[in-house]
């Protein structure tokens, strides 16, 4: 990177970036589900307090968090999930050196910190680990989190510095892919993003492109208003597609991600109760169904953590039932749902992503209940309580499995069947009949290297219509074979 033309007046002979083009991108990021951007601070009433802006009450989304999320997405897009870093990646090119590389280049992309445009609405989420053997809460496994409500908006700003030596189209392509991930809502931020938190989307972009070799545009860059947040009223028109705005085409680059997306719509058969644990105000019942803000309105939800817990437990049961006595198939479950080994201090995150589901068309009803004294058969003193589950309603469960293997798809199909038939209840008080579901329709889609395979299951007049029974059956057989140890793959 030394300069080519040296004159007597030249005082600088240092290695200098010759920046010939600057691209500035602005967008507005909107959270689609609750998001936990933790500060990592230990002195707080909750286990994970939110990161706040240093001088106001607004939430802070750091540039490093945005860049980290974009970098991961870009690598997944180019190489499939779980790929290690390589020095010739698009991601390395755009986001700078690999972590283990001591003398790599700095990132040509500048990602700004984003401060939420308003003081955000906060929600308190708590959860507890259920012991799969006893079915009750594990000791010391209760936690609570502060989360930003869906609908919080963050103004984003990026600046891409392009060197004379840099591969311009490659950098722009990388940026376009990464930002398209935000546009399509495929990038998640913050904690527990594999359990439905942190979904976000950018719907509009504003792009400035300064060719600095042209003095007029160079002057425009010097005068550019970089200090005002959000969209500017100035020249570039807001565009809904980042590809159009950056004038990039992605025809040569193929999405390498290998994933299975399962969307299933269920009706709630009776009632559902996910205890919210929030301190209720005024004369609320003792126990209330969990609700979360969507478009400024409180809606009942089925959190990803609950659903994933239920699925994991049932998956364990299926595998343990099928496995021959003496055999162990635990690796299948931990491989799919993630695991933490406290002793070896290793962990692996889940490959199964479970979204939080909004529940529509429900009714709130308060039920009064009382314990019966077993001895007298009368009402127990002091045991009257009331609760407010939701009755009726329906929701769409959306889960995604990254790098699925055939037997894992088989296991998911068995889980789907159990949910569908009401055999696998979700939420609390399942022993008194709450949380049973009735399947309506399901769509399973396998995307791999730009190829798409789709299957559907529908319930029409009490009859199941399956698009390709045999194909689905082979997945389940693959599971049986795998567990029996006949076919390791």
């Amino acid at each position: 990177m030394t300069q080519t033309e040296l004159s007597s007046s030249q005082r600088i002979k240092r290695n200098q970036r010759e920046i010939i083009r600057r691209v500035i991108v602005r967008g507005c990021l909107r959270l689609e589900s609750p998001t936990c951007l933790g500060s990592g601070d230990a002195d707080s009433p909750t286990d994970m307090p939110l990161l706040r802006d240093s001088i106001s009450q607004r939430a802070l989304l750091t540039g490093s968090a945005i860049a980290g999320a974009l970098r991961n997405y870009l690598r997944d897009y180019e190489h499939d999930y779980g790929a290690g870093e390589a020095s010739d990646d698009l991601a390395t090119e755009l986001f700078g050196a690999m972590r283990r590389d001591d003398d790599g280049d700095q990132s040509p992309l500048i990602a700004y910190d984003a401060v939420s445009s308003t003081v955000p609405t906060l929600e308190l989420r708590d959860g507890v680990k259920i012991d799969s053997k006893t079915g009750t809460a594990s000791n010391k496994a209760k936690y609570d989190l502060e989360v930003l409500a869906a609908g919080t908006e963050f103004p984003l700003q990026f600046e891409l510095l392009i060197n004379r030596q840099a591969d311009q189209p490659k950098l722009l392509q990388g940026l376009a892919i990464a930002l398209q991930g935000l546009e399509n809502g495929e990038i998640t931020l913050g904690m527990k993003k594999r359990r439905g938190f942190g979904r976000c989307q950018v719907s509009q972009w504003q792009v400035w492109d300064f060719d600095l070799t042209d003095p007029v545009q160079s002057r425009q860059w010097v005068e550019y208003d970089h200090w005002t947040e959000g969209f500017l009223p100035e020249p570039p028109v807001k565009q809904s597609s980042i590809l159009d705005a950056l004038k990039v085409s992605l025809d040569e680059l193929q999405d390498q991600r290998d994933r299975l997306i399962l969307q299933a719509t269920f009706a709630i058969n009776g009632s559902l109760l996910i205890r919210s644990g929030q301190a209720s105000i005024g004369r609320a019942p003792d126990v209330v169904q969990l609700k979360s803000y969507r478009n400024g309105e409180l809606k009942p939800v089925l959190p990803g953590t609950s659903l994933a817990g239920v699925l994991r437990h049932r998956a364990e049961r299926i595998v343990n039932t099928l496995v021959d006595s003496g055999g162990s198939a635990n690796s299948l479950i931990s491989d799919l749902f993630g695991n933490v080994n406290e002793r070896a201090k290793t962990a692996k995150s889940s490959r199964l992503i479970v979204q939080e589901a909004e529940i529509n068309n429900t009714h709130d009803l308060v039920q009064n209940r009382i314990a019966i004294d077993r001895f007298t058969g009368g009402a127990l003193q002091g045991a009257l309580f009331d609760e407010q589950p939701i009755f009726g309603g329906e929701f769409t469960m959306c889960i995604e499995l990254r790098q699925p293997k055939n037997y894992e798809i088989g296991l998911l199909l068995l889980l789907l069947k159990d949910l569908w038939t009401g055999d696998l209840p979700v939420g609390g008080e399942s022993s008194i009949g709450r949380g049973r579901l009735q399947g309506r329709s399901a769509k399973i889609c396998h995307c791999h290297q730009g190829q798409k395979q789709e299957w559907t299951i529908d319930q029409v007049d009490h009859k199941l219509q399956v698009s390709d029974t045999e194909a689905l059956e082979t997945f389940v057989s693959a599971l049986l074979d795998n567990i029996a140890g006949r076919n390791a793959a």
Partner: protein
Amino acid sequence: MPTYTLNIHLLSDTTFGRGDGVAGLIDQEVEHDPYGFPYLRGRTLKGLLSEECDNLIHTLPGNQKIHWQEVAGELFGKPGSSLDTMGAIHVGDACLPEDLRQAVAYQISREKLTRSEILDSLTTIRRQTAINPETGVPDKGSLRSARVVLRGLTFTAGLSFEQQPTDDQLCLLMIAAKALRYLGSGRNRGRGHVRCHFHGESLPSNYLDRFFAVQEA
């Protein structure tokens, strides 16, 4: 000896790194004086201004490039140690207001305040980890913390000259101040986003026209 000032307004939290940390608390401390006031070293600031000038001069067409390179050479100096190569400008540290610092220094001398109280009131601590792409969990050994100076503060640096600077030199400085937008550690990741203003007497008003005037060779 004419003096000019450069105001640096922090638009985001900033780390004026100093290359060390505090064992058990933070990995990256900010540069601060004996009273706990963070500041940006003049040496660093001069480097930043000079870099921004070089970046812009590079993109200029032929003749102008040579002209402005000469001006930058006079202004910031040339490598090597002799009187001729010395820069015309002297860049001071960018600090918080002098009267505030003196008032606090007095309070500290009376033991009403301590240095760490001052530092804590002007800074906060940010923590971050890296996620391992292969396992999806935090990378081992990646948790780190850095102190950041609160955004919204304005630091002022004195820029002095031994002789009256030429209009060209002032013009270049004003351009550099306009172009200086990121400084400190983590400046590519949101920290250290700043807006600078150059103040002083008899500044050329048409500095942009002057710098970008297209003169074909």
